[in-house]
């Protein structure tokens, strides 16, 4: 392919002023800046998510030895471990799978917490649904129960939208690249 050969020739020609030449001092300044990598964002959001969920639980129950609190601490440990195990010098497919594994771990935690909440409230949920679809729903005009019911329905939707706009946007490119490499293998 003639075009590619031409490009190859140009690509390997070192031309002055082709790129900005940074000094060692400038490079040193760069090393001190904070990374904005996808892995770091996933890690930070995951930690924040656990802190929020654990925090809510703690302030509501005021119990230190709560199962969900312990679960949160365990996940904090595992997430930190997996984050620090990410090796930037691994091959691209392994690196991408390490980041996605970190994301998957956070997702498992969220699912565990949310399913726990739903199970705890299963009885009430049944009651709300029964009321909601009942014939005399309007007569009862129980605004409080409607609110709770709508809240329970809306919560996963809101959560999904939050996830889509955080992890979804963050990992879109990574997922695409990982799937492309996975398909190749």
């Amino acid at each position, binding site marked *: *392919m003639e*075009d*590619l050969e*031409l*490009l*190859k020739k*140009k*690509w*390997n020609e*070192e*031309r002055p*002023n*082709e*790129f*900005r*030449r*940074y*000094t*060692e001092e400038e*490079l*040193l300044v*760069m*090393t001190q*800046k*904070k*990374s*904005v*990598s*996808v*892995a770091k*964002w996933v890690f930070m959001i995951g930690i924040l998510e656990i802190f929020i969920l654990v925090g809510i639980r703690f302030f509501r129950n005021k119990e230190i030895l709560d199962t969900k609190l312990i679960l949160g601490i365990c996940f904090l440990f595992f997430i930190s471990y997996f984050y620090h195990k990410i*090796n*930037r*010098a*691994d*091959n*691209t*497919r*392994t*690196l*991408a799978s390490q*980041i996605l594994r970190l994301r998957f771990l956070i997702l498992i935690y969220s699912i565990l917490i949310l399913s726990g909440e739903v199970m705890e409230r299963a009885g009430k949920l049944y009651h709300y649904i029964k009321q909601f679809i009942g014939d005399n729903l309007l007569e009862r005009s129980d605004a409080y129960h409607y609110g709770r019911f709508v809240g329970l329905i809306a919560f996963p939707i809101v959560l999904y939208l939050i996830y889509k706009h955080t992890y979804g946007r*963050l990992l879109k*490119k*990574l997922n*695409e*690249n*990982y799937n*492309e*490499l996975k398909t*190749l*293998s």
Partner: protein
Amino acid sequence: MKPDLQKKFLQELNENQRIVHKICKIYTDNPTDHEDLFQEIVIQLWNSYPNFRGEAKFSTWMYRIGLNTALALFRKRDRQVPTHTMETMEQIKIHDETDPEIEEQVKAMYDAIHRLSDVEKALIMMYLDDKPYKEIAEILGITEGNARVKMNRAKEKLKTLIHG
């Protein structure tokens, strides 16, 4: 990091910074993103340097981390690129070339490369850098055979993008 190690790192990075610039050129299309990606690669190299055992050459290790950053770690910031910035990029490219016809051909090639997928960009870049298939396969985490197949497809796609 120990001062002598830091000094060594900066020296090697300084000598090989063209590699990082080339990765940025393939993966970005404006100077601001180029600068952002360059900085992110430098940070990733810096963070990984304590684990660099010297089994491979610094430039090879740097190439791998640079590509990994572009493919798996870097995320462009959501922002509007000012038009004058884009123009500056074009002016730089045009200034590089002497023959207007060749200049136009090379520009068309770069435009087409920017329309490839990230993995295809990596393959084309490694082709331009004359990397053997064994190394390409190792860097991406695929088999050598698949690297060959994918490379041919990427070249074909590039051809179609240029000539329609």
